[in-house]
């Protein structure tokens, strides 16, 4: 093989290796991502049955957070539209962890509940100052009242 063709061969091989590494990493991410998370209803349907460890994603049910007084252990419920899953976790929680926050937890099933080794909070893409958020929440509540026709609690006494 003459030197020019040999060099071109090396070029092609190097390019292919680089493309393969890039492609391989992407596929790897997709593999993880195909099952990046299961929702509580999916887990209840049994979709996660073949996985020892998997990710559970959903919203923290309002009022379900219970922290133990003497350790870092905490229990809460993750919900989606059709399902719920109790979760147990020992460790430090992210700053954004609270009621109605989206969470992604990694762990395994044990006796019908999910034991998490990692709890990540997911936040949305909206950014605004607190005053605006409060004003929006107030307006939203007012609108809801108007829509349902319920009288606000400060009702007239009979």
């Amino acid at each position, binding site marked *: 093989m003459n030197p020019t063709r040999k*060099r071109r061969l090396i*070029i092609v091989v*190097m*390019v292919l290796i*680089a*493309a393969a*590494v*890039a492609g391989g*990493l*992407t596929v*790897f*991410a*997709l593999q*993880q*991502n195909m099952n*990046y*998370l299961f929702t509580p209803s999916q887990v209840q349907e049994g979709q996660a049955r073949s996985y020892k460890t998997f990710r559970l*994603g959903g919203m923290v049910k309002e009022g379900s957070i219970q922290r133990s007084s003497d350790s870092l252990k905490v229990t809460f419920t993750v919900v989606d539209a059709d399902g719920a899953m109790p979760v147990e976790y020992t460790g*430090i*929680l*992210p*700053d*954004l*962890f609270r009621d109605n926050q989206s969470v*992604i937890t990694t762990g395994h099933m044990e006796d019908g509940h999910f034991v998490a080794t*990692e*709890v*990540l*909070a*997911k*936040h*949305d*893409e*909206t*950014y*605004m*100052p*607190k*005053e*605006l*958020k*409060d004003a929006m929440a107030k307006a939203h509540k007012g609108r809801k009242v108007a829509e349902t026709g319920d009288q606000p609690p400060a009702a007239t006494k009979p």
Partner: protein
Amino acid sequence: MSSWIPLWLHKLGSPPTFYRFAGKLRPWMLALAIVLGLVALYGGLVLAPPDYQQGDDYRIIFVHVPSAWMGLFIYGVMAVSAFIALVWRIKLAEVVAMESAPIGAAFTLITLVTGSLWGVRMWGTWWTWDARLTSELVLLFLYLGVIGLYHAFEDRRQGARAAAFLALIGIINVPIVHFSVNWWNTLHQGSTVRLFGPSTMTDSMIWPLLTMMVATKCYYVFSLCSRVRADLLALEGGKDWVRQIAAGESAR
């Protein structure tokens, strides 16, 4: 074929003409980048209010998002120049493509590091293999691959050709990075700044962000001018116009 190219564009393809043009453009672009950057920094760090859910941690956005945008934008410029270089063999296109790579890599590195610093408290982790983060890492590897391939050859023009091929193959990653948050379940949230439709950020936060996006673009042009000029001097060392510059500078 070249009849549809205007004369001024044709002339700009000549190294000494471009060298002079870039030399004039450079200081203006740097000045714009610095002024707009300072305005954006003041707007983002001082004027903008804290976020209702992320507090002051969200302020990383003012360097993270513009850098992410530049990482993708520069890759596009690099891929287009690479295409022109491969098809028309225009030396200047090769230089623009090869010299864009380190700048793109720099912005991508900034994106990854600032993203980790942001995520460690807000998400609860430095890193996760979701589609957005992984494809951004792939972007960095592609940039490094282009740089590495370019320098792996004795013959610079051959190196440029091989690296240009890699740059072209990798262009598929750019839409993957951008749409990853829509196509897959990701930890990373969706896009805040939208081209079509309202952006999900209050005005006081969005104007510093957009200002920094313009500032980083000006910086890219400035840096590209510097790098292309240095590269042209290296490539065209034997030519008269370069000798004149070398002689002129030693006279100082």
